[in-house]
């Protein structure tokens, strides 16, 4: 029995892969892909496009877990396909691959990230220097509370996995989302930044941090192990304090 099961999962066996084809409307198409040792989901998608169906559109770049371009929904869960082995997710030799949730579909596995980055801007997720350039270096102690808060969230590469995993994003179209809010929090804590008050105003309210209900799907899924939930909790505290002081 055990030997038979081993043979089932070994090389030479075929994967049944359902891939979303089309735009917002479309259908899943099924492909048979040879199973290989240490195969990743990105390997599977690449095989389909190169050997089975050249019309398949998908996105990738580094393929080694550094850029986040290959993020897709695999069996209903947002993941980096280059860092997801088939062995980990293929339940009974079946895979379902779709574009990232909560984002408009351009074609097949490619989603439109425009609104994701627009919200980044709306959350004032960019640095506004205080001092004119050419002055003295800013002194930032790495073990200070503020810097540790920044460091906890600074590694975000904007892959969209958290955004795709958040229910509030799907329920409230205006919600800025975990990535934008996490970035805003890193800037709120950056002592060199000068847009503190404007940024708090940008992230407060129904479209901002107060819409988060701590579902923590973002934290659960982030491939960089960042916790946007913690960042958003920090924003809640900062905005509440500002509101109480009449500074919001």
């Amino acid at each position, binding site marked *: 029995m055990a030997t038979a099961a081993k043979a089932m999962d070994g090389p030479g066996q075929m994967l049944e892969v359902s891939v979303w084809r089309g735009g917002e409307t479309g259908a899943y198409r099924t492909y048979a892909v040879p199973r290989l040792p240490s195969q990743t989901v990105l390997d599977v998608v690449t095989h389909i496009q190169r050997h089975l169906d050249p019309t398949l559109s998908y996105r990738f770049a580094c393929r080694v877990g550094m850029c986040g371009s290959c993020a897709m929904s695999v069996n209903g869960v947002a993941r980096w396909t280059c860092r997801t082995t088939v062995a980990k997710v293929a339940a009974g030799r079946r895979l379902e691959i779709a574009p990232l949730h909560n984002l408009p579909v351009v074609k097949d596995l490619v989603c439109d990230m425009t609104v994701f980055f627009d919200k980044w801007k709306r959350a004032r997720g960019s640095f506004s220097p205080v001092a004119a350039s050419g002055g003295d270096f800013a002194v930032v102690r790495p073990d200070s509370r503020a810097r540790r808060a920044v460091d906890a969230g600074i590694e975000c590469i904007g892959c969209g996995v958290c955004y795709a995993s958040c229910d509030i994003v799907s329920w409230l179209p205006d919600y800025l989302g975990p990535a934008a809010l996490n970035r805003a929090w890193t800037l709120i804590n950056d002592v060199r930044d000068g847009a503190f008050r404007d940024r708090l105003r940008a992230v407060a309210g129904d479209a901002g941090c107060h819409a988060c*209900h*701590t579902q*923590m799907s973002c934290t659960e899924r982030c491939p960089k192990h960042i916790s946007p939930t913690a960042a958003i*909790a920090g924003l809640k505290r900062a905005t509440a304090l500002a509101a109480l002081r009449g500074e919001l």
Partner: protein
Amino acid sequence: MRADWHARNHPAYWAFVVHRLSGLLLTLFLPAHFLMLGQALHGEAQLDGLLRWTDAPLVKTAETVLILLLAAHLTGGVRLLMLEFLAWRNWQKALAAIAAGAAIAVGLGFALNVA
């Protein structure tokens, strides 16, 4: 495209569902609760008559469920207040489990005493 249940199958999400559903059900229950207590305006006998109705086993079961909902909403809410105001990340899963355990304990306490 919308996410499905696979993306939601983790403890913090279940905690959210419990908290929201219990909150909604309690909000629906409260007016009935207030109306019943308000019967005391018509005298003690009036209130007592209604209380006799609550002696029925089915009602006692419903009451136990309500107590569970209230306890769950309370413990889940305290967990949220801790997560939001204490920025305490490493213990979240433990918090959810502790909240669930405390709520069940309260529910049991009620069930054993009302029987």
